[in-house]
């Protein structure tokens, strides 16, 4: 017992299941408390345990520190995008080609799609001097069209809408045609919130995406969401594949915007759940209800919060 404890202080100790299990459990629980989905926290810690078994701790490093470092590395890897998305750069490139850059915002009800759309619009306007057109393709929820009109007015940009009539896929198409004619640089397409298990609504969304071939499909998820985060992302992504038209390449989700980060303090675990389940990067974080409250994610800040 004594020598074992001593080794945990002096390092160079071969790690066994007995050393790792209690510490892994502590970290796994810690992640769940920070709102990382249960299965993800468990499988993350499982894989870290596997990678550490039979390895030796470094000199003067405790088992706990060894595990913590491995976890940090692992979280970094998860949060570091395989494909970087630079909305501004891509939109400017499209402008050079003389094509409107089309972004669709999708997600479940009330997560902040419409607000986020207007924040991204504000960002592209301010940083890139880009000329926007909003497309009011949520013609289902009461007040949705008026909501987008208010944003259009505030940003002083035009909006294309058909009130509460018509097919959202077609309204988006009209907006894109309009943008081409009038020379708008960016078309921001708002969609109605829907539950990921609602098949007719998911089909309609897949149609909108398929017909309009947007340059960017952004999934908006809120930092408040718990274990449902994984299910939302995988099912939205899968619906875009399953309900796309035969013989064509389906457009899947390109990136994630994590909204309402200002409401969760350090319980920012949804970021891990969302990225881990699809491998899609977090393009922006929403940090408030104002136009300016949009920022790029700082991976180290997120990891520090998760391990604090």
């Amino acid at each position, binding site marked *: 017992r004594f020598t074992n404890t001593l080794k945990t202080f002096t390092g160079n100790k071969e790690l066994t299941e007995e050393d790792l299990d209690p510490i892994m459990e502590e970290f796994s629980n810690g992640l769940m408390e920070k709102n990382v989905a249960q299965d993800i926290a468990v499988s993350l810690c499982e894989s870290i345990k596997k990678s550490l078994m039979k390895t030796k701790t470094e000199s003067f490093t405790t088992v706990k520190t060894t595990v913590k470092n491995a976890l940090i590395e692992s979280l970094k890897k998860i949060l570091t995008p395989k494909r970087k998305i630079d909305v501004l750069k891509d939109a400017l490139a499209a402008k050079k080609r003389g094509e409107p850059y089309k972004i669709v915002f999708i997600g479940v009800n009330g997560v902040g799609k419409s607000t986020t759309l207007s924040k991204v619009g504000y960002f592209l306007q301010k940083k890139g001097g880009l000329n926007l057109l909003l497309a009011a393709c949520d013609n289902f929820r009461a007040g949705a069209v008026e909501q987008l009109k208010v944003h259009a007015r505030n940003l002083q940009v035009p909006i294309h809408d058909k009130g509460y009539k018509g097919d959202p896929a077609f309204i988006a198409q009209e907006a894109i045609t309009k943008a081409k004619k009038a020379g708008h640089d960016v078309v921001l397409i708002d969609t109605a919130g829907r539950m990921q298990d609602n098949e007719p609504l998911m089909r309609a969304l897949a149609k909108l995406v398929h017909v309009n071939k947007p340059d960017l499909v952004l999934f908006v998820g809120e930092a408040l969401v*718990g274990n449902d985060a994984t299910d939302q992302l995988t099912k939205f992504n899968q619906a875009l594949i399953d309900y796309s038209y035969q013989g064509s390449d389906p457009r899947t989700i390109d990136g994630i915007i994590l909204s309402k980060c200002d409401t969760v303090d350090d319980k920012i675990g949804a970021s891990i759940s969302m990225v881990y389940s699809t491998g899609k990067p977090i393009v922006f974080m929403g940090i408030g209800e104002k136009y300016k409250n949009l920022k790029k994610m700082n991976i180290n800040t997120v990891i520090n919060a998760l391990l604090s």
Partner: protein
Amino acid sequence: MVLADLGSKLSQTLKKITSASKIDDVFLTEVLNEITMALLSADVKFEHVARLTTSVRTQVTLFMKKEGKYTNMKKIIRQTVVEELTNILNTEKTPYEFKRGKSQVVMFVGLQGAGKTTTTTKFAYHYIRKGWKVALVCCDTWRAGAFDQLQQNAAKIRCAFYGNPKEKNPVTIASEGVEIFKQEKYEIIIVDTSGRHMQEDKLFEEMKEINEAIDPEENVFVMDGSIGQACYDQALAFRSAVNVGSVIITKLDGHAKGGGALSAVAATDSPIIFLGVGETFDDLEPFEPKSFIKRLLGLGDISSLFKT
């Protein structure tokens, strides 16, 4: 749908206890692990899960000391699980009961996008259909399109409505609306407020001011059924700011298991009165704690499991 997954997971575990030939420490640990995972994946707050499992362990150990053997252990485990879950939901408070022929004010509060506006309308519709004289007041002066949203909703269910898009002070609108409808002898006056969160003091201050100005008979806290580990703190903050009397959980038509509900209820120390199960106005289910627990655990008659 809702909670069914959790329910079946838990009831499987409980069945296992019933059919186990031998209950020893290893078995107990295994059972507690399964229960823990089921509850965590349903977003039950971490501390609640920990308390539940500790309590089961304590009861079992006490029993062991007394009896010196593990017989009858199954019953102890089941009993403690049911009791602890019920304890989370239990509250002394009873929801406000409306009285005929009297003007009563209900204020809806909650986080951004939780479903307040939609739920105020469902709530109004519920009482209108029972023949009450109901009115809706919009004092969300913040969210774009909030006025139009509630106005359109009210029109759809033919409910009296007050709002003033020109007035920027929600306290003024709330007072005016409530005053008018009191004079017109409306029985249930429902006040919809902006979404807010505890990190923004000003927003909470505003809620307190509205609350003071209209002095509602009941404050309803609306929360999203998919919310994760951050909900407890928020619910607690709402309760300390205004006198929350009851809770409505929304979006339970989705995939979320709603375990966050259990925890939020503990924080507000208030009963759940309705569940929101869709976007249309009759998608509102009355809530019954006993049957909730029954459904949660997939049990028939649970009364035998309660200690006398």
